[in-house]
């Protein structure tokens, strides 16, 4: 199989996830988009691993091992991330990322603008 198929698919999925991270308002949707990006990376890893294990007789299978690790870490990340989102939601009453503007230049004014919007 041509290597370009999985690699191009991986790139497209990654950028789709990227778009979701940048454009989604709900924090949980952002987490989903992060999952998409992680999976795109996994696909890349698997594809290269399969290619290299045949082409160069590589026996470490580092790509697949890393994929397993990534999946594990992604699971931990989603747990921690959801805990954070829920804590924020409990404290602020919202999970919308663009309402969390404590680092803005003038917090009062931006909050007022958000409240009126």
């Amino acid at each position: 199989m041509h290597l370009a198929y999985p690699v191009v698919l991986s790139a497209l999925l990654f950028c789709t996830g990227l778009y979701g991270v940048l454009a989604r308002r709900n924090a949980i949707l952002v987490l989903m988009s992060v999952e998409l990006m992680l999976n795109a990376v996994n696909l890349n890893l698997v594809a290269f691993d399969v290619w290299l294990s045949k082409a160069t007789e590589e026996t470490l299978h580092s790509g697949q091992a890393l994929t397993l690790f990534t999946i594990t870490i992604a699971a931990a990340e989603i747990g921690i991330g959801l805990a954070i989102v829920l804590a924020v939601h409990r404290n602020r009453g919202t999970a919308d990322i663009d309402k969390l503007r404590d680092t803005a230049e003038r917090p009062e004014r931006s909050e007022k603008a958000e409240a009126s919007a």
Partner: protein
Amino acid sequence: MTTTTLAVLVPLLPFLGAAAGLLLGRTAPGFVRPLAVLPTLTAFALAVLVAVRQGGDSPVVASTRLTPTGSVPIDLALYIDGFAALVAVVVGLVATCVQIYSTGYLRDDPRYPSYAALVSLFTSAMLLVVYSGDLMVLLVGWEIMGICSYFLVGHYWETPEARAASLKAFLVTKLGDVPFLIGLFALASDAGSFRITRILDTVTDGGLDHPTLIALLLLAGVAGKSAQFPLHTWLPDAMAGPTPVSALIHAATMVAAGVYFIARLLPVFAASSAALVVLAVMAAVTMAGSALAALAQDDIKRVLAYSTIGQLGYMTGALAVGDRGAAVFHLISHGAFKALLFLAAGVIIHAAGTNSLAAMSRMSNLRARVPDAYWTMTVALLALAAIPPFSGFFSKESVLGAAETAAEGHAEHIPGAAGWTVLVAGLLTALLTAAYAARLWLRTFRGQGDEAPDHGRQPLSMTVVLWVLAIPSLALGGLAYGTLPDWFDGDDLAPTLTTSVLGTGLALTGGLVTYAAWRYTTALARTPLGAVAAHPEADAATVEAEAIASHAPAYGDVASAPDPTDPSRVLLGPLHRHAAVGFHLDAVYETLFVRPVQAGARLVRFLDREVVDTYVRGAGALPRLLGAAVRRAQTGNVQTYVSALLAGTVVLVVAALLVATGA
């Protein structure tokens, strides 16, 4: 201990006392008074010991060089001859009296610790000037005195008079110090050393290349420090300081430093006859003008201040005719009786609650309130007026005798014109001095009108020192004129018949004429006049500060009062108006220097605010604009930040790829 060690301790002890007083002033108030009095007293005792050991023999010389400084070396050097030893004794005596007196005078003053420390520092600086054998070290003491006088004159800094007076004292003396410094450098470069012994040797060998220039430059500094015309104007205004400070400045330390400096380096001045003539004219103008001004003053302390200027004129006159023995003799006796006059005046101001002679002349029986001050001040005024046998008579006669010798052409290298100038001015001033002394005495103690207020007895610390100082005022001259030549250059200091008769006669004439004028004016209708301090029961320093502050509002001027019963109006006639303001010298300075400087300051201020600042503001505008633009990006939305970050990353990656592929 060797004489050298003792001599080093003399300036060092007051200095250590000052440092300790400044350090402990707040934390240990109980130590302040001992720390003020004891080091000065010890220094006085050591100065006496040094004088006894030196005994008018060959000078005690010691020096150590701390570090090489390049061209002209600077040594820590002592040079104690008879002049230095005796002047140090006077300085120690007056400083001790002032310190003791201050403990009573500033009894309740919250700033007493710093005051006492500064007085100690002042004393230490003067002793350093007296003992120093190196001109640079002398200059250190000279400048420390300048800054100490600034702080001490401004002790009542709540009053605008004191603030202005302290600034004026500092600036005017600095005005003289700049040429003085240049003169010192010129002298050292000509002589190759700052050591006084080396300089005097050079002068003896005729090695000075520019004697007139050096002498005139040094004269400027001396005129500033010793309050000689035309740089004397700071001294009357310095009366805004506390009375003990006035006594210290006038009697022994600051103003004496200039005279003492010339006395030390007299051969340098004598090398230029032009400088001597200038010195003589300066002395003549100073003594005659200040005596006239003293006659017209209303503030008792300003009378004494102008009298100090006049007496300093005698000293510089003696130096102008080349007799430093007479000059230092007069310095010593003047130190004693002028300190006494000021300290007694402080007692009187405290008792009367005012510093105005016009107000005092409307109080009867003031002398019964302050009998100590009455008797001692009488003695001191007689000494000031040079009535025999008080000490002032002998010292002043020695000056007049020296002038007569010079006028007759008996003195070597001294122009006869200088002698005549000093002699004529000195005799005229003797007349005027007796006149203003009599006026001061009559108007203070012979007032008529309401009974003087009774505030009880003055503190013991303030009255005892009066009697201590009264002894030398009374007896020093008669006892010392025979032995002093052994300490000095050996010139005879005994009064000569001609000048004695002339001087005493003129003094008696002045006193009698003033008495007649006073009798005449007291018969006139007396307009009520006078203002006394708001808190006459307070300690002396408070009373004095309030009296100074109330003089200008009550009488329209700090110097004079519109009092028709003043005998000086009769005596001076139309001149009174000008004499009261010091012959408009302040107004001249105002026009010549102050206004141009202020105009220049306004111009600079305008240039700074309107021109320079415009560029600064303009330079700030662009960054401010950029900052405002960048600040808009700080929205707080994390997604915006990440978008910008990733967009930048993509751009960089594409750029890197294009570069890598060579596109």
